[in-house]
């Protein structure tokens, strides 16, 4: 049996069907998309080759795209700010062996299994000016006439969406960190305590450095998914009001599928893909020297 499985031609043959399916589903459509980005096509008529025209329009003439880039970057940094520190703190607290630890771990993890669509809809109602939980709480404790459209005002629309996203995914990053902390050898903690380290020093000098691989994974995941964020925006604000919460993915949807400018939309999606690749490479480089493999 082992001879068969280590036989290279056999391996290739067994992998081949899966490889075909993978090629059809991932690389080929990606390459096709990049190709479309150099054309002008409305999905119905003929496809005209237009070279770099889409990219020229995108970077020089599309004011909304510039706003999208700014919004996407803001979205990314606010998401990191809301999710990472909280996930880290929760993971440290929930690996100490406190009472109800397992309960809280499960509780914080639970929102992740909900579909993004249902969480978005729920928060849509949470933020509702009249019937929403947020405004009703403010009315309960303060101004009785308070009525604010969190998702309808341009200053708060995007940030409100990031809060909803954070609610769902803090548990995700927390779980990554918990698994990381659990794999730190107990001897390190014992040795540190014997040497007189207090809680904060343990976190700073043991947990944080040992968790670097996990932090790297978590950061790459949060970066790529924030850059691609679409369903939350689409459901909660549809890019509004007046593009105040428009991000790269929602702009791409609007151009490609609503306005039927498929070539232009493909250009936007290509830019997004390049952005994700670049940020992954940067993150990997930043973490390269800080990740200890084995102590």
């Amino acid at each position, binding site marked *: 049996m082992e001879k068969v499985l280590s036989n290279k031609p056999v391996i290739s043959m067994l992998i081949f069907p899966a490889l075909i399916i993978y090629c059809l589903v991932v690389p080929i459509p990606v390459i096709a998309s990049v190709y479309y980005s150099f054309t002008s096509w409305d999905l119905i008529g003929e496809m005209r080759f237009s070279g770099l025209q889409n990219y020229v329009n995108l970077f020089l003439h599309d004011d909304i795209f510039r706003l999208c880039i700014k919004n996407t970057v803001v979205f990314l940094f606010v998401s990191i700010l809301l999710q990472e520190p909280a996930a880290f703190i929760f993971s440290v607290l929930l690996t100490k062996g406190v009472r109800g630890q397992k309960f809280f771990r499960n509780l914080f993890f639970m929102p992740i299994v909900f579909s993004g669509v249902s969480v978005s809809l729920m928060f849509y109602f949470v933020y509702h000016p*009249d019937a929403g939980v947020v405004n009703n709480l403010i009315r309960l404790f303060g101004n009785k006439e308070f009525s604010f459209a969190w998702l309808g*005002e341009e200053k708060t629309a995007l940030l409100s969406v990031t809060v909803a996203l954070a609610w769902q995914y803090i548990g995700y990053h927390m779980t990554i960190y918990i698994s990381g902390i659990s794999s730190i050898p107990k001897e390190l903690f014992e040795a540190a305590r014997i040497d007189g380290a207090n809680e904060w020093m343990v976190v700073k000098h043991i947990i944080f450095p040992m968790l670097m691989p996990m932090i790297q994974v978590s950061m790459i995941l949060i970066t790529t998914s924030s850059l691609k964020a679409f369903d939350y925006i689409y459901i909660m604000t549809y890019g*509004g*009001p007046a593009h105040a919460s428009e991000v790269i993915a929602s702009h791409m949807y609007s151009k490609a599928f*609503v306005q039927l*400018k498929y070539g232009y939309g493909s250009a936007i999606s290509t830019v997004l893909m390049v952005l994700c690749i670049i940020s992954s490479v940067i993150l990997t480089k930043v973490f390269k020297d800080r990740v200890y493999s084995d102590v």
Partner: protein
Amino acid sequence: MALDDIINGDEELKNTYIPYRLAQFDGKTYAIGYTLTTEVYYYNKELFAQYNVNVPKTYEELMNLIKLFKGKGIIPMAMGNQDPWVGSLPYMFVFDRIAGPFKYEETCFDKTGKFTDPEYIRAAEIIVEIAEAGAYPNNFNTLNYDEAKALFTSGKAAMYPMGTWELANLAKEMGDNLGFFNFPDIEGGIGKSEEDWVCSQDGATSISAKSSADKTEAAIKFLKFIFSTERLSDLAMSGALVPAKGLILDETKLQKVSIDIYSQLENVKYSIIPWDNLLGPNVGKEFNLSTQSIYAGKNPAEVFANLQKIADMEWGSK
């Protein structure tokens, strides 16, 4: 093929046909529509009677109505601008009354006019005037479509600018209490409330120019049949809104509101097509977002300059 000769040659067609800009090309008519959608100001007859007021004939009267209802604690007009096209409806009316029915064609059809022209900005200032007089509910700019409709049907709002696709629903909820009027004239303006209506036709029926002679003849016969006064009247009686005048309607079987709409249609000289349909999915959406921004307090001159930039990019003009 061009249908003008057929329409003008047939007595019934000539009497019922309402001209429609989108069915025309190079001055000739190429299609006849059989569904009509128009947009009007619905109003609650009971509330109007209760406060002894009449349908406004001028802009001053409309503003007085708004002040009166607001003073009595009734929302003057229900509006849910979360879908930004809703708020663009008053804008189209106001623009027509100021600048007349043809001005918007320059910009929306011919692409020679500009959104930065003074009439567009003046119209924007007027819709802000209406909003600031307290015409709309709180938070109307983010209010949901269905919630706004509920405000009207439950009697909390006196008026409701909306389209006739809601006619059946509203009539079911409000029965004979439902009335409508067209946005009144603005003094010093060109457009007339009697003659200019915001409406669009659907169900365009045309005849191919490539058919053989006897097929074309059969098609023409069929066209004259389905657009005969009798057939159109039957269609109207079944509840659909038909873009035709001179119909024979049984007043006892059709709702009063529908009968009123048909009698008003007799005077329609110009159909203002909803702008976002004409401007296409990109500029049309931006136009709606522009009116929404103006309600939110943005400077109309800036908003329209932005809109013009987007229009220029879309249509390639400089």
